[in-house]
């Protein structure tokens, strides 16, 4: 019986020493833990900044893309003017037919989006060559040549560029998930700061009451980002500035 009691006493002593060592280690971990808590809001801010920067950049590319699309609309207007000019010239009926065909292709293309770009360019080239060879309509040929050039330069991949910019939305969604994780880690670290603060031998009853309120507030922020003043209050209350 005496041996059993002695063994138990020794085990309890070991356990007490183990607990004491563990608590000391936890105390040592307090400072880096708090530093991390203080740095996490900065990490979240950087992530949010990343979303904003990519959003601004994407809008700028979109603005330029839309300008090119507007330019395409002007080109189509020029082709229609050319058609009217050729329509008034009785000596060039076949050219008028070709231009009508071009106009129809443009109209179809507007509906079908991508469709018959190459056929359109080919037809317009034919029109320009015909007009250049003829005695009349030289300036119309110039207009058409410019239009062909603009179409070939500007128009082919505008829609693809526009849709490719949806990468920004996907990036922003992932950044949002990362921000949520950072806020969650921050919340958990602050809970640890409060809990360890309560265990500290110098914790006054006033601090204990405040800490309990803070824990409640932390739990209430589970679904939202924490307010900076709550973070500062918690760190300040437990001696971290």
């Amino acid at each position: 019986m005496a041996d059993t009691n002695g063994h138990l006493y020794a085990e309890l002593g070991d356990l007490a020493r183990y607990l004491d060592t563990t608590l000391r280690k936890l105390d040592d971990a307090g400072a880096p833990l708090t530093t991390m808590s203080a740095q996490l809001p900065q990490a979240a801010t950087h992530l949010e900044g990343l979303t904003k920067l990519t959003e601004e950049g994407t809008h700028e590319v979109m603005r330029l893309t839309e300008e090119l699309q507007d330019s395409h609309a002007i080109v189509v207007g020029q082709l229609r003017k050319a058609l009217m000019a050729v329509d008034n010239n009785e000596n060039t009926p076949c050219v008028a037919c070709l231009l009508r065909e071009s106009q129809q292709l443009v109209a179809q293309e507007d509906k079908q989006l991508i469709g018959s770009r190459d056929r359109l360019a080919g037809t317009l080239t034919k029109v320009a060559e015909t007009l250049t060879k003829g005695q009349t309509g030289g300036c119309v040929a110039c207009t058409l040549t410019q239009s062909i050039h603009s179409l070939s330069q500007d128009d082919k991949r505008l829609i693809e560029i526009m849709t490719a910019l949806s990468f920004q939305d996907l990036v922003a969604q992932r950044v949002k998930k990362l921000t949520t994780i950072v806020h969650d880690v921050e919340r958990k670290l602050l809970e640890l700061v409060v809990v360890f603060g309560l265990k500290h031998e110098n914790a006054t009853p006033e601090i204990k009451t405040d800490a309990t309120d803070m824990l409640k507030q932390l739990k209430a922020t589970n679904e939202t980002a924490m307010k900076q003043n709550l973070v500062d209050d918690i760190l300040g209350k437990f001696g971290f500035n």
Partner: protein
Amino acid sequence: MPADPAMKILVVDDMSTMRRIVKNILKQLGYANVEEAENGQEGLIKLQGGGFGFVISDWNMPVMTGIDMLRAVRADETIKKIPVLMVTAEAQQENLIEAVKAGVSNYIVKPFTAETLQEKINKIFP
């Protein structure tokens, strides 16, 4: 019945870039009467205001998600017949099943092309 180019379309997405992309593609397809909403709640209020013939909505949005808006639309007698196309990064099978159960008209996974959007619109308005 083929889609009327003059019909009013609502684009619901919390990302301004996505709203602009969808609006731009719709314009190229011939649909110029497009309005925007930043989340499901704002979208629902606009839809209840009347006049819309088609909705293109994201799934993940703050305040009210796209799927919740879809359920609210289908539960509202005055707007329940409006076709709703979900455009979302949620590509899991269970998401699709959830959307179908909620009454989605069709479903596009991001990133998507203009051709895909046109194809889906053609299926909704044959």
